[in-house]
């Protein structure tokens, strides 16, 4: 069930360089949310900026939903200045979340940068013990681990572009490394991050015939499937030319997307 309501901010704290974690009080959304879904937040009651912003849910805890965001523009700048006790107009949970890995098989969760957000919710929900959590970041000061959102004792393999933490390289390199040791092969690969990273992960998974689900991020206006602004090209496998990220996504089977057009 989708709720649109005024939610109180339980906390809004910086957890990494320009990255904030916000807790929003909403028992309704917390009860309804599944990993991979998102919320649309109106950053202030004004004509400008006009549109809501989509944010992945990174955790459901108590009667809170948590969102993790990086300050990249005016909307997130305004959001970062909000304080505990302030209220925001929030709508959610929206979209189709992640599926489940086949019973008993390990899942690989791969994150690029802020793409870590929905995967933390997924890992927390299915149990991190059944997952290999792999994440790539630009540099050590950008690293956001499970501990930053209050998930303790969770193992995460890290790669950084500049080698300042973990393996030097990409999360795709990390995944190749893990796959070479894993027997049996994982039952599912989940991925969220920038398009080049998703392309690399999806290519590896599809080459090995491992089911792969990716979560996409696009500009969107309504979040409800009405404006059709968030279209991404479909692969044609399922008799569709475009998918709408807000409604048919944000999580897609990697085979359903036209990777050349992304």
């Amino acid at each position: 069930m989708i709720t649109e309501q005024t939610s109180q901010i339980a906390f809004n704290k910086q957890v990494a360089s320009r990255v904030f974690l916000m807790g929003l009080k909403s028992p309704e959304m917390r009860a309804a949310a599944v990993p991979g879904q998102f919320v649309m937040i109106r950053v202030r009651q004004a004509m400008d900026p006009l549109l809501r912003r989509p944010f992945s849910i990174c955790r459901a805890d108590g009667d809170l939903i948590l969102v993790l965001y990086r300050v990249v523009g005016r909307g997130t700048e305004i959001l970062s200045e909000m304080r505990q006790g302030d209220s925001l107009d929030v709508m959610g949970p929206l979209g189709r979340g992640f599926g489940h890995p086949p019973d008993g098989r390990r899942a690989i969760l791969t994150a690029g940068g802020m793409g870590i957000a929905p995967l933390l919710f997924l890992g927390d929900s299915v149990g991190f013990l059944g997952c290999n959590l792999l994440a790539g970041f630009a540099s050590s000061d950008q690293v956001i681990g499970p501990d930053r959102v209050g998930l303790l004792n969770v193992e995460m393999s890290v790669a950084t572009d500049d080698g300042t933490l973990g393996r030097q390289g990409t999360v795709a390199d990390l995944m190749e490394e893990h796959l070479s040791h894993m027997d049996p092969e994982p039952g599912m690969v989940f991925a969220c991050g920038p398009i080049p990273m998703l392309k690399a992960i999806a290519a590896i998974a599809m080459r090995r015939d491992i089911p792969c689900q990716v979560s996409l991020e696009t500009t969107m206006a309504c979040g409800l499937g009405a404006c059709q602004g968030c279209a991404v090209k479909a692969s044609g496998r399922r008799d569709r030319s475009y998918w709408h990220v807000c409604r048919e996504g944000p999580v897609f089977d990697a085979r359903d997307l036209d990777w050349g057009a992304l």
Partner: protein
Amino acid sequence: MANLPDLKIRVGPLNLKNPVLTASGTFGYGAEFAPLMDLNRLGGIVVKGISLRPREGNQPPRIVETPCGMLNAIGLANVGLEAFLEEKLPRLRKLRTAVIVNIYGNSVEEYGEVAAGLRGADGISAIEVNISCPNVKQGGMAFGTDPDMSARVTARVVKAADRPVIVKLSPNVTDIRRIAMAVEDAGADALTLINTLTGMAVDIERRVPRLANVSGGLSGPAIRPVALYMVRQAVKAVRIPVIGVGGIMDYRDALEFLIAGARAVQVGTANFVHPRTGLHIIDGLTDFCRAYDIPAIEHIIGTLKEK
């Protein structure tokens, strides 16, 4: 407590329970918003534009936010006439609100074919003809910027349709009155104005247009004063009723249009920002009428005092 003010309104041959409609392309086929609100409270729903055959729409990016507004170049993505009748209309028909079907064609003949295809279909209160989409290669705005072509499309749809015909005008013209009068003469029952204003935005880092289509239609509160002026001009130029649309965010905005002479309003981009905007406007109009002892919304329409 005084009686509730009467919000019922006639728009030509159309009887609406209140003057608040949702604009085409901003409210899907209604169902998208059903989880969040009681659709039956609306004066009407204008559904996403329907063409003879399905259209996949433009390449992304299709939207970009701009100051107090947004640009869109969706490209009239829609399920097509047949799927609309089979899959969308049955749900819409169950609603107790006016359902207005927006139609679009690539040629004068095709407009007629879509209108003819809707003949006899239950649950459609009126047809709204889109002669003003800025985001498609063929037709669209090309019809809406020329009085003769506007009249030809209108006449063809009026002839083919078996219910009231509303024509939605483009603001991308030199003199809106000429188009409005041509469409009236061609037999339209009402006018809707305005559609979006053509615009563009540039990504300064990559030096590329921010929309794949290069240009798009500007909507939102940024365009409201333009829309209001055009509605006023049309109201003075024609005898058929005018429906006002463009950047309406709350009941005060709606009142501006009603006072200027619009007999109803459509809420567009505001549905994206706040899905229940239409209902808030209805409540706001009710409260306003009560506060000023206005027994019926009819008494407000066209009451602008101009020197």
